[in-house]
Each structure stands twice: as structure tokens, then as C-alpha cells.
């Protein structure tokens, strides 16, 4: 094709020229514009194609879970949040309320049909029928295919284990606001949306918790006790592996805050725990070299202290050496030992053991010890065998742990300790050393003797060497003591040659039965409980049976048939 050459002459030529120039300018501008566009396109397409990092791709979803999970030391879920649908209805869209109410009742049997029908015939636009359905119920309701029924989501805190760990976990209210337990104490972590993926790891082992709970239930029932409590402690790290208190409650249901079943006897309750304290007195006596094992005291006659006369429950009516005082749980011997130790040293020791302050357990409700208002000669004597001073059972358990684990007091905790924390404990600073390792070794042997020959015989377990100390405390009431009502307890260490676990159990007001010759003391009620528990938990924890070796200080004890 031949290009046509247009030529304009004269005055018009100038105008043409201008137009052409403008055109070229315009074209240049457009060309430039499109070139930039093209270059930009190429650069986006070629060079930035691999960059897929758009917001949300690294996505932690913070909307999903409002509250973090709580798991046990093996990762078993103890508390979690689930989306639970609530069922509402728009009554204007319902054709046959009568029929529908029957169908709903079939799926949700704990509703009353009259109420449902009333809701379905209500004149409002939206009525709640039931809050917090299970997924299965939701499926069934959906299957009815009724357009008037609407679901809306709400978060619900679920405790799959029910009442098993109730006293540790506490509970939450309707809008997931915590009301007790670790739920309340660690609320800052649990309700922090940034940490909702990070479960709170407790030191509890659900399997041990179950065993403890079961044994407690059995024994509370057997002795018709008012209640009971127990705790299993790691002797070396202070971790609480199981903690149970009866009666307990189901955190899935609403329980009044002041309901008696909410009371945690191990962490909250303070009791005069009785003979368990003799462990402290004897350990202090040996550690300060006030006495040695071969020395002893005359325990043949009751002693008068202020207005009380103090007897021995398992009276031997003779001179007793230190192992015998401990093994036969002699009040007279212990108080004479305490007198030799003196008030100042005893007070300082109790303070070092943490008996004067609250425990470190991560719960706000922990009980404050009740101490004697003054510490005179009477208090010196009574506290030496665990009367006149009221502490929580956890105080006693962690104190005894320090007596046997080489003398280091590790504060009890509900949180799982990781490997580095455990390492730093074993490498250990000196400031938590309460008694010398040698005294601790002696105390282990004495506690073993109690189970072999003394008041704790019924805790004996074939194959395991365990140590322990019974405690039977008369309950204080209104300034005096009610002689009949006792708190029977047993604190045990196992295995005694290399302590790993501290097991404590107590029964509140147990009643003697025929098999126990109508006795309700710690040796008859709580000791067999702990024995049973150790028999069951040993294999679970992989603790191999130990052959019975020669028992230390066995020869020092004069065994007689009377018990």
C-alpha cells in the first residue's frame, strides 16, 4: 500500500504543523505512560512473583480460642474451650409448634415440654430454648430442618475429667470469668489472646490423681469420714503430682462459691496435724546435736504441762531412746526432747521450714497457718508433737520432703518444671538447706522403722521399702478439744532409700470399724490407704521392687507385742 502524502500549503500549513506537534507530544506522553506501566508489570510479574507473604499467611488465629487450655504433665487436656451452639427460635417462622416441641423434647430430654411450647408460641422475635448444646444435639436439631430454629455460637469451658481435678483447676462462670483455682491465679496467661495457643502445663499427673481420688473415696466411705484429702509430691522438685480433697465438685456445673465441696482441705484447710510434726522435732534434735540416736528420755510417767496432762497414745511406760520415741510416737519423749532444744531454735527451724507463712502453691485461696499468739514453754511442748499450731497439709508434706531428700526445702508448685529448672534444683543453692544431708539420711531410716515396726505397719507394701509417720490429732473446737473427733493422717516417703515421692493422706473424723478394732487413729485408717496407693502407683511410675536390705537401727528398738 502506497502512503498518501497530504500536503497543505499556505497559512494552513502552520496550523497543521501545530496540530501535528501536539499529537506527537500527546503520543509521547501516552507512550511514556504505557512504558512505565509495562515495566511495572514486568517487574511485578517477574521479580515479585515469589513474594507470597501477605498478611495473615503466618496466621495465628486469635479469634478462635478465647481462653488457653490447661493440660497435665503428660499433655492430657484438663480444661479446654469449645464452641458450643445455643439454640434459639424465631416463633413467627414456626408452623406447627405442638409437633416441633415433641421433636425437640426427644433430642433434649431434660427440657420441659410446656416451657418449650411456650417459647415456640411466644410473641417475641427471638427466644432462647437452650444454651450450650453438644455437637451431637446440634446435629440432631439441624436434621429437623426447621428454618425457625437458629443457632448462635458461644464459647464454653469444658472439663473433660469432671470432678477429678476440680480443686486444683477451680472453675469459670457463665462468661468464662474465673472464680477459683489455677483458672483464677493464671488468668493473665489463660485469658491473654496472644497466648491462647500455649497451654498451661500443670505438674498434675492425671493417672496418679485418679488413684489418689479413688483410694480416698474408698476409705472415706469405709470409715464414714466427713471428708478426706491427699497429696502426692515429687520429693526432689516440689511438684504436686496429685492433689485431691473430698468432697469435690464438678466444675462443668455451677457450684456456689461458698459451697462446702469447694473447700480444698490440702491447700486451704489449716489443721493441727499431730504426730507428723515429731519428724521435725526429732530431725532438729539430731541436726543440732542436742541428742544422738542412743540417748533418750524417760517416758514412763505422763507429764503435766500447764493445765494439761500429756499421755502417750501407744504408751510403753519405760525409758525410750530416740528411734523408739519416733517409732512409737511418744508424746512424752518428744516434748522432753523439745524442752532440751529450746524455744528459739524450734521457732527458727519452723520458720525455715516455711510453717509461718502461706505455701507457694499457685492458688489464691491458700490457707494461712494459725500460730500460737506467744511461744512460751507450753507452746514449745505442744507444737513439738503438732498441736497448738495449725498448718495446711501441704506445709507438712513439703516439710517432710525436705527432711528426707537430703535436707533441701523446695517450695511446692502446681506448675510442671522443665529439665533446666530441675537441674538448677539439684545443683542447688545452699540457702534452702534446712538440715544436713547426714541428718536427712538418719531421718529416712527412722521413717522406715516406723513402717517396719511402729505405728505405720499397715502401710507396708511387699516389694517396696517405704517410710512414713502416722498422725492422729484431736480436733480443736471452740477453745477446747473434742476428744472423740480426730484427724487421722499418714505421711509417707517412697522409695525410702532414694526418696522420689511424698504421699500424704488424711481423713477427717473417721469412725473406727470392726476390722480396725474400732480404732480411728492414723495407723489404722490413713496408713493402709497410703499403702494401697503406693502398691498401685509404684508399677505405673516404673519403680522396680527393692529387696529388703538390713534395716538400719533395727537393733536399737525393743519390739514388744503390745500395740
Amino acid at each position, binding site marked *: 500500500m502506497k502512503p498518501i502524502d497530504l500536503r497543505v500549503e499556505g497559512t494552513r500549513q502552520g496550523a497543521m504543523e501545530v496540530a501535528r506537534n501536539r499529537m506527537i507530544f500527546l*503520543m509521547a506522553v*501516552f*507512550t511514556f505512560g*504505557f*512504558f512505565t*506501566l*509495562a515495566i511495572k*508489570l514486568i517487574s*511485578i*510479574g517477574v521479580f515479585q512473583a515469589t513474594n*507470597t507473604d*501477605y498478611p*495473615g*499467611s503466618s*496466621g495465628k*488465629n486469635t479469634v*478462635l*480460642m478465647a481462653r488457653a487450655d490447661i493440660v497435665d504433665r503428660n499433655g*492430657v*487436656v*484438663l480444661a*479446654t*474451650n*469449645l*464452641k458450643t451452639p445455643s439454640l434459639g427460635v424465631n416463633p413467627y417462622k414456626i408452623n406447627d409448634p405442638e409437633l416441633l416441641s415433641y421433636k425437640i423434647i426427644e433430642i433434649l430430654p431434660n427440657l420441659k415440654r410446656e416451657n418449650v411450647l411456650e417459647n415456640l408460641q411466644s410473641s417475641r422475635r427471638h427466644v432462647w430454648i437452650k444454651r450450650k448444646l453438644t*455437637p451431637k444435639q446440634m446435629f440432631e436439631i439441624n436434621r429437623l430442618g426447621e428454618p425457625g430454629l437458629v443457632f448462635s455460637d458461644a464459647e464454653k469451658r*469444658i472439663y*473433660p*475429667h*469432671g470432678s*477429678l481435678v476440680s480443686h486444683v483447676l477451680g472453675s469459670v462462670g457463665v462468661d468464662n470469668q474465673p472464680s477459683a483455682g489455677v483458672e483464677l491465679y493464671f488468668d493473665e496467661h489463660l485469658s491473654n489472646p496472644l497466648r491462647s495457643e500455649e497451654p498451661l502445663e500443670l505438674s498434675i499427673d*492425671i*493417672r496418679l*490423681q*485418679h*488413684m489418689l481420688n*479413688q483410694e480416698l473415696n474408698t476409705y472415706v466411705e469405709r470409715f464414714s469420714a466427713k471428708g478426706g484429702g491427699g497429696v502426692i509430691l515429687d520429693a526432689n522438685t516440689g511438684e504436686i503430682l496429685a492433689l485431691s480433697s473430698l468432697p469435690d465438685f464438678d466444675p462443668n456445673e455451677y457450684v456456689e462459691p461458698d459451697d462446702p465441696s469447694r473447700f480444698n482441705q490440702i491447700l486451704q484447710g489449716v489443721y493441727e496435724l499431730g504426730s507428723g510434726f515429731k519428724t521435725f522435732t526429732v530431725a532438729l534434735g539430731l541436726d543440732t546435736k542436742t541428742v544422738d540416736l542412743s540417748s533418750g528420755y524417760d517416758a514412763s510417767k505422763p507429764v503435766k504441762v500447764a493445765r494439761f496432762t500429756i499421755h502417750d497414745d501407744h504408751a510403753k511406760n519405760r525409758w525410750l531412746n530416740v528411734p523408739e520415741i519416733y517409732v512409737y510416737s511418744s508424746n512424752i519423749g518428744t516434748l522432753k526432747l523439745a524442752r532440751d532444744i529450746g524455744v528459739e531454735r524450734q521457732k527458727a527451724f519452723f520458720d525455715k521450714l516455711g510453717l509461718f507463712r502461706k505455701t507457694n502453691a499457685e492458688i489464691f485461696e491458700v490457707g494461712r497457718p494459725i500460730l500460737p499468739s506467744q511461744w512460751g514453754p507450753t507452746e514449745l511442748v505442744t507444737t513439738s508433737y503438732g498441736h497448738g499450731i495449725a498448718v495446711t497439709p501441704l506445709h507438712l508434706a513439703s516439710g517432710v520432703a525436705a527432711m528426707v531428700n537430703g535436707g533441701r526445702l523446695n517450695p511446692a508448685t502446681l506448675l510442671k518444671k522443665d529439665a533446666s529448672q530441675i537441674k538448677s534444683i539439684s545443683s542447688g543453692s545452699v540457702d534452702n538447706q534446712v538440715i544436713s544431708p547426714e541428718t536427712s539420711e538418719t531421718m529416712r531410716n527412722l521413717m522406715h522403722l516406723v513402717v517396719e515396726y511402729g505405728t505405720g505397719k499397715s502401710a507396708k*507394701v*511387699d*516389694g*517396696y521399702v517405704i517410710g512414713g509417720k502416722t498422725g492422729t490429732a484431736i480436733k480443736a473446737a471452740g477453745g477446747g478439744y473434742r476428744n472423740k473427733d480426730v484427724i487421722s493422717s499418714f505421711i509417707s516417703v517412697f522409695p525410702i532409700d532414694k526418696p522420689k515421692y511424698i504421699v500424704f493422706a488424711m481423713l477427717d473424723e473417721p469412725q473406727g470399724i470392726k476390722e480396725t478394732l474400732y480404732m480411728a487413729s492414723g495407723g489404722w485408717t490413713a496408713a493402709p490407704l497410703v499403702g494401697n496407693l503406693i*502398691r*498401685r502407683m*509404684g*508399677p*505405673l511410675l*516404673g*519403680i*522396680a*521392687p*527393692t*529387696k529388703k536390705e538390713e534395716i538400719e537401727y533395727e537393733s536399737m528398738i525393743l519390739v514388744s507385742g503390745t500395740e
Partner: protein
Amino acid sequence: MIRIFAAFAILTVMISTASVYNLKQATYDLEEKKRDISSQILKDRQAIKVLKAEMAYLSRPERLERLSRRHLVLDATQNEQLVADLNELTVRGSVQMATLPVDNFQLLLPRQKPNPSTFKKNNKKQKITPDVRLASYAKSAEKQNVIHKKELEQKSLYERILAKIGNYK
């Protein structure tokens, strides 16, 4: 000249329009996909949470105990079933291990692994009782195994000896 230029410009416009559209569409698709995946993840996480809670609920120790008592012939482990030390299994004084632990030898030549092909033949000869079923593996897993074995075989004996000596030092 100007026509070529104009044609080029028009072409550029068309191409760029098409590519912009294409890009936009692709991005949109990706966004869509991402949203889908995100909501799927959300759903899955929710489902996982429900399943975890259900698992914790179904494996309550109390329930397991009840079930095992009803359906199993086994009882709870007793402590005498555990053995801490070989000596406890016999009444003889002290027990010597029949074979010394490997570490006692200064140098131990690694043995050739049995050839997988001969292995298979032997396996086929074995009569399989109808009660016993061989577990079937996914093909990819099998492939991986084969590759792994090949890698092992490729190492020369000398190399393996060196590796073994290296272990001792």
C-alpha cells in the same frame, strides 16, 4: 513509521490490559483460596480441639479402668513384675552376660546387612496362617526404604570401618 509505532502501542495496550486483568484475577483467586484455606484451618482446629477434648473425656482413667475390667483378661501390674537387675531373676549368685557388650571390643567390623531380595524369597516360603495378616505399607514408604537401603549398600566396607572407629573416639 508512525503506523508501526501506533500498532506497537496498541499491541502494548492490549497486552498490558490482558496481563493486568490476568494478574488481578490470579490474585483474586489466590485470595479466595487463601480465605478458603484459612477457614478450613479454623474449622480443622476447632475439630481438633473437640476431638482432643473428646479423647480426654473417653480416656478418663475411671472409664478405662471400668472397660478394662469388663473386657480384658489383664489385671493391673504388680511391682514384682518389674525387674531392676538381671541378678534378681535367678537364684544363682551372680549372672554373667553370655555375650559381652559390643563396646568391649576395640574394633568390630560391621556385618553386611542381609540382602533384601533373598529376604523376600524366604518370606514367601513361610506359610502364613489365616489369622495373621501382614501389614501393608504405603508405596511411598516402601520406596523410601529401598532408597535408604541402597544408600547403605553404596558405602564401601572401608568407609564403614572408618565410621566405626570414629565412633569409638
